[in-house]
């Protein structure tokens, strides 16, 4: 069951037959998540898309994330990749450390953590602010813009390009490759493979260039030179570059887009932040909780019964972070956005050893992108709520989102 035709019939009972690519679920997944979470089967199962489990309660999602020896990261995509063998020379290139298990996970992660420490990402704040202002300069006089494609989509890709030291005129191509892997590619393995190869081919050339012309303060050069401490290979460095694109673009772009979509419909929240800028830290966390963009997967290592569910070795589990983050057992009034929410242990970035390594950068980009927008465009609204389009599956967020101001 891997093609769209085989998998897209109507869903009658989401606890036994959910479809994460159902157009209604892609647009607004929360009612279905809530239905599953409050049913007798809060860990749903489906045979669609190669089969998967779907835990929706906060405690279950966190428990699975913490049990990384049983619930492994050998595959983290929400659909099976039947063409794995067909990937040829690139079959071994993953996206470390997100796709690594211990013991390699430890050094895979350790090598990139310094790059994303709060004090390291702080140096990108001014550049991100300037970028956001330039983007707004481009459309502010028109009185209307697409908050998705003209703004949210443009920001993370350029921040990541700067971190990787690659030309920023690659932005449109990077976006297209990442969507090829993470959006279209989830249900079309050929598109997935093509775009994966484009990413790896591009970075293979960048690696060759850095070996010939090493640079100062350059992520790729530094990674290539860390071989004195760890068994760093070209495959590992290519994998990290792949991860930076796959994990750093579509995700943050979706969070920025969802937040602007929310603000477009909530003038009282725009005013609340204008009147009380001290709320920004909790506001950013609340938007991440309410509109968590990412769903990761795990692969079950061995047969195990988890919360009464008979899981078999090789089964796929979808880590429904967006569902966990709206569990009323953990969050009061979970469907309400409360910008000064005091108790907010959300799992938008996951939990345990695979908790997002780039969370400090994502938080910075989200905060700056929203602050600059609200400074420059304090009043705005959706042109047509029904015309907003959404991506779903692995990453949830608006794509076309026209606003008027």
């Amino acid at each position, binding site marked *: 069951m891997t093609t769209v035709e085989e998998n897209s019939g109507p869903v009658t009972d989401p606890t036994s037959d959910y479809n994460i690519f159902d157009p209604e679920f892609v647009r607004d997944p929360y009612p279905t998540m809530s239905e599953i979470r409050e049913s007798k089967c809060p860990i749903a199962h489906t045979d669609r898309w190669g089969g998967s489990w779907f835990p929706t309660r906060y405690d279950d999602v966190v428990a699975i994330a913490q049990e990384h020896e049983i619930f492994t990261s050998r595959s983290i995509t929400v659909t099976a990749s039947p063409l794995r063998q067909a990937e040829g020379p690139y079959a071994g290139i993953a996206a470390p450390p997100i796709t690594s298990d211990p013991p390699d996970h430890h050094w895979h992660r350790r090598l990139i953590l310094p790059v994303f420490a*709060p004090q390291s990402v702080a140096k990108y704040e001014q550049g991100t602010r300037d970028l956001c202002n330039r983007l707004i300069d481009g459309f502010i006089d028109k009185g209307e813009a697409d908050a998705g494609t003209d703004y949210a989509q443009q920001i993370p890709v350029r921040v990541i390009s700067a971190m990787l030291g690659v030309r920023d005129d690659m932005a449109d191509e990077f976006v297209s490759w990442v969507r090829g892997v993470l959006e279209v590619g989830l249900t079309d393995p050929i598109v997935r493979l093509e775009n994966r190869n484009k990413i790896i081919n591009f970075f293979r050339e960048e690696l060759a260039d850095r070996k010939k012309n090493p640079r100062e303060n350059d992520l790729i050069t530094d990674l290539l030179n860390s071989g004195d401490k760890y068994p760093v290979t070209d495959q590992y460095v290519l994998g990290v570059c792949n991860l930076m694109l796959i994990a750093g673009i579509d995700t943050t772009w979706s969070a920025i887009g969802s937040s602007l979509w929310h603000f477009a419909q909530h003038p009282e929240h725009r005013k609340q932040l204008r009147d009380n800028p001290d709320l920004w830290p909790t506001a950013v*966390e609340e938007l991440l909780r309410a509109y968590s963009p990412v769903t990761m997967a795990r692969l079950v290592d061995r047969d195990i019964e988890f919360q009464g569910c008979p899981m078999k070795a090789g089964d796929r589990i979808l880590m429904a972070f967006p569902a966990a983050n709206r569990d009323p057992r953990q969050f009061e009034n979970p469907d309400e956005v409360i910008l000064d929410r005091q*108790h907010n*242990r959300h799992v938008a970035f996951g939990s345990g050893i695979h908790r997002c390594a780039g969370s400090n950068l994502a938080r910075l980009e989200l905060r700056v992108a929203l602050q600059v927008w609200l400074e420059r465009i304090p009043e705005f609204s959706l042109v047509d709520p029904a015309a907003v389009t959404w991506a779903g599956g692995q990453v949830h967020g608006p794509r076309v989102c026209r606003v008027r101001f």
Partner: protein
Amino acid sequence: MCSIAAPEVFGSDELGHATVLIEGDLPEHLHAKTRRAQANCPEDAIIIEE
């Protein structure tokens, strides 16, 4: 997260892992911020001794 909620109390080391910047008792004016950091820690890793 804690270093955003309570930057006077929490910092981060070279790897981005949280560190505690204050030795001994917390000054009164930082109690509320530290409690917020605790209530928002995604790993439930902060313990406040009273």
